[in-house]
Structure formats: C-alpha cells, structure tokens
C-alpha cells in the first residue's frame, strides 16, 4: 500500500553504494602565490600588515578582514620561519578512525613578528610534554624539492 505499508523484513530496504569522483586544484590566490613563490626561493615567510589596525597576517592577505581595507604592496615584509606554540594536541587516530603508527603532535603556532597562527606538525619523540610556549623553527624541504604548497614546511621543531 505504498507509504502505509509496514516493513517487516529489516533486510528489505536496500542500499546503493557509490562515491564522489572529483579532483581539486586550488590556486594559491594573488597573496598566496607571492607567499609560496617566496618560500620556494627563501627560508623565510612573507607577511602583510593592515595600515589601519596594524594586524600582521601570515600567510599574507590582499586585504584586512576586520577593516575591509586593501593592504598595499608597501606593507609586505619578510618574517622568519619561526614561532611559538600556542595550542597543541596529540593525535592518535587517522582521518578514518584507525590507529596511527606513532602519535602525531599537531600544534597551532604563532609566527614571530605577526598576529597570525598556522597549523603545523611538531617533530618530537616526547609525547608527554606540554608544548605550550615552546619556541619552534620550521624545517623546510630542500630548496630544489619545494613545490610551492604548505607541504614545503615538513615539520616544526
């Protein structure tokens, strides 16, 4: 009777398996392109400063999201690829919920000389340590192997 039918067999309703097939290509953006091209050639980061509120963005932006003002080229500067850990966690499972071979320390690192934080993997064997406040430096890929993506930053230590 259609809608008013009773379902008495739990195996009766079926399922259809499938997947979503698509690959993605994300251009880095105008600001991001400059940042990554700089990182390919140098062992430092670029940052940009809003002329109104003086917030320093790293990775740099074309505009300040709070003031909604464009950041001119003259407000870009180099900063060192180092920072301080503000938050961290110890990850024991991968994205599919399976145990990792060895735990990973994932941290939010405030880049020196900026108001910005980025996510990074910490290279360590000490999984009991409290990393908050620890100063770290970025360990970058060898220059000839850099591709111009965040993976050029291998670890922080």
């Amino acid at each position: 009777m259609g809608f008013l039918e009773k379902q008495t067999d739990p195996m009766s309703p079926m399922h259809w398996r499938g997947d979503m097939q698509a690959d993605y290509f994300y251009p880095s953006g105008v600001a991001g392109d400059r940042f990554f091209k700089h990182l390919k050639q140098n062992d430092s980061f670029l940052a940009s400063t809003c002329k109104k509120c003086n917030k320093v963005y790293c990775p740099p932006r074309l505009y300040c999201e709070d003031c909604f003002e464009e950041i001119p080229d003259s407000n870009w500067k180099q900063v060192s690829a180092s920072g301080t850990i503000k938050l961290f966690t110890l990850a024991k499972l991968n994205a599919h919920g399976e145990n990792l071979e060895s735990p990973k320390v994932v941290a939010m690192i405030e880049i020196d000389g900026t108001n910005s934080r980025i996510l990074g993997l910490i290279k360590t064997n000490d999984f009991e340590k409290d990393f908050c406040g620890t100063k770290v430096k970025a360990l970058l890929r060898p220059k000839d192997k850099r591709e111009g993506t965040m993976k050029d930053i291998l670890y922080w230590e």
Partner: protein
Amino acid sequence: MVEKKEYKEWPPYAPGTYVRESDIRDKNITYTWWEPEVQYSWSLGPAMSKFLKGLKAGKIFGIHCKRCKRIIVPPRMFCEYCYGPTEEWVELPDTGIIETFSISYLDPDARRIEEPILVGVVDLDGTPPHHGFMHYFGEMTKDEIKIGMKVKAVWKPENEREGSITDIKYFKPLKGGGE
C-alpha cells in the same frame, strides 16, 4: 564613509588575474592538489527498493496516487503534487513512447566518440503523459529516432540482472507498431 568613485561607465574595470591552461601546465602559478575520497551508501527507501527488485525480476512497477489519479513511475512513497501517501503498486508494461532524446557525441567523461550514444526519456504505457524515466535507445540509427516513436525494453538475461536501472539494456523500436 569613504570616497565615492565617480566612474562614467560601469563596470569601470575588471579586477581579477587571468590564469591560462598553459600557466597551470607549466607551473607558472603555485597551487595545491587534492583528491578527496568520499564514499556513499544511499538508502533507497521502500519505494525504490521495490522498484529495483522488480527490475531484477524483469518487471517495471509504478505506484498509484488516487487523489491525482496518476500512476507514478519511478515510484515514490508520497506524491509530491498533492503531498499525500501513494497507494497501490501497479505492474506496468515495458513499452512506451519516446518523450525526448539526444544524440550524444560525448561519452560520460566528455570524450568525443565517433558512434553517437542515443539517450532520452521513455514515456511508459499505462501512465499519464510525460511520466517515465531516462534510458538508452538501441537498434535504431540517429536518423530513425523520433519523438513519439513506440519502443520496448530489451532486458539483460535473468542471471545478469542485479536490481539496477541497467537491468534494462536499452529500449528498441516496437516492431509492428511503426512510428
């Protein structure tokens, strides 16, 4: 407030940085690549489950909405026009007429093919006008296919049917019925 810009023509300029396919190929710009792995298991619901089981058995099922006085195929648990529950299951003949069609020179991955694929919508017999589903057409050429042509389903052999819309291979011209 900031300075208002008095341009004579709008849009006054076109901001944006054009990237050519060659810039991507030659890596003149930086980019990040990502291949997501997303798996799905869609619940078919009672109506679709019965429809697909029917296809496995070589039958096409429709469902009756008494208020709208229409037999709906593909079937569903409720009628979206009167928003009421649907009622009896009805077995439909596997014949119909071509509602619309296309002659495609692109395969499903948008690659060009020499021999076109004939695809379209079949308006099934036993249902109100314009009620049917999409499927392939076969045993006819691109010059023969016409809207209004009578067609009949060609089924896979019983042991190859899985409970899928592809249990019907295609619809062919109904012999003796003409056009």
